[in-house]
């Protein structure tokens, strides 16, 4: 489904990724971990064409998106949803309008169909009755959930989660975990970037560990859990970064 080959990316003189390769199969949830500033967000952003790689290939359903122009990326962006680290909600719009945005843009639904879809979606994410609020008036946990709800409005085939549980209380964290698991049960392909290891262990099938611009380790979640000496173990226990 997703295949990254020899991905290389730098900003100015600063090399972020030297040579990153990995793949994600259909229906799989892949965890991506690594220190702060390791470039995890940069990888996710590149997967929907928000950043262009310096070299290498990014294949989504066999289509190399690294060379596509902005208007050719629209179909990819309908298929692959990116849940922003900070929510990235439109702060001049209400929660309702935020969720309506992709629908108005890409569907022919009428006003009432849209309304019922959005109300259902909000209920689904425990946001009932908050459709008239502006993002500025929401708690951090609610903002994350609105961001997630908005990204899922178009029923994407792939979801890229960028630290969906960061800064949330245990209850909200559990809620988000449940959502990810539920989507996975429906066959969603996903990549989860996180520092929250319990969540990663709970939802991921495989994991990649990013270090110094390369995938240092990649393997099944069980392998990582059993491993008591390797570099990933050290990273998780805060002995290495």
């Amino acid at each position, binding site marked *: 489904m997703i295949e990254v080959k020899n991905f290389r990316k730098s900003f100015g003189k600063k090399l972020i990724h030297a040579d990153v390769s990995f793949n994600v199969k259909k229906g799989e949830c892949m965890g991506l971990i690594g220190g702060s500033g390791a470039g995890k967000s940069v990888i996710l*952003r590149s997967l*929907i*064409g*928000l950043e262009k790689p310096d070299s290498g290939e990014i294949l989504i359903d066999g289509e190399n998106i690294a060379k596509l122009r*902005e*208007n050719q*990326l*629209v179909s990819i*962006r*309908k298929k692959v*949803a*990116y849940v*922003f680290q*900070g929510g*990235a*909600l*439109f*702060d001049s719009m209400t929660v309702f309008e935020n969720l309506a*945005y*992709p629908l108005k*843009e*890409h569907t022919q639904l009428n006003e009432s169909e849209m309304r019922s879809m959005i109300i259902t979606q909000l209920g689904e994410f425990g946001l009932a009755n908050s459709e008239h609020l502006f993002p500025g008036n929401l708690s951090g946990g609610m903002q994350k959930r609105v961001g997630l709800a*908005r990204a899922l409005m178009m029923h994407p085939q792939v979801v890229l989660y960028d630290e969906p549980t960061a800064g949330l209380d245990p209850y909200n964290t559990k809620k988000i975990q449940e959502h990810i698991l539920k989507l996975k049960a429906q066959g969603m392909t996903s990549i989860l970037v996180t520092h929250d290891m319990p969540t990663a262990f709970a939802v991921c099938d495989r994991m990649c560990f990013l270090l110094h611009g390369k995938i240092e380790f990649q393997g099944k979640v069980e392998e990582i859990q059993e491993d008591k000496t390797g570099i990933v173990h050290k990273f998780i226990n805060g002995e290495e970064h």
Partner: protein
Amino acid sequence: MELILNSPLILFFHEMVYFFGGIGVLSYQIIRDLFKGPFYWRLTLDQVFHVGNRSLPLIVITAISTGMVMSLQFGLGLEKFGGKLYVPKLVSITVLREMGPVFTSLMVAARVGAGFASEIGSMVVTQQIDAIRALGTSPIKKIVIPRVLATFISLPILVALSNLISNFGGLLVGYSELKLDPNFYILKILTTVTLTDYFSGFGKSFFFAIFIAVPSCYFGLTVKNGTKEVGIATTKAVVVSSILVLVGDFFLSKLFWILEKMT
């Protein structure tokens, strides 16, 4: 070598190249996307309203003050030579040809240009521009084109209004200070001022709209990180669009003179 490369002049030159390059690319994208795909009427109308709303009070005050001050200065200056009767014509022509369009545009540059740059800059910092792209839409179409078009529509209307108000200001002072009969004042304007005078000023406002809107959006979009840069972008937007209006005014005036002579 390092020293030379970091000298203010070289840095300034460097920035100029970047600026004109960036403006060129943005203009190309605007023109390309203007006639392609969905067009957002609602967003454009919202912006027209915003532009007008933001700048109207300011423009009314500027317009009436400039009209009054010019009437006073011309009146007092010409009184010695018995030329008071030329005040309506002089004030009106100066307003229509230069003062109206230029002052209005400067005010719009300060209010609206700053607004665009800070608004768009904040959207970049909070990743809303990225979100627009990630949701399969274009920031050029959603954000830039509505603002550029709105300025293109609003500024000429504001200039027309400002022209009217300035002349009214002139008339007020003409009546109260110079003791000119209001009917005479109006008649004098109508008989001595030509349509060419009017349109050579009014026509410039369309160009000024572009000089203000495009750089302001550009500076907003090129904010990289941090709120501090939003402030810098806002200042740059105002300074650069004001300079473009003033410098552009000279060349446009020259151009319109040539056109007038030809017809």
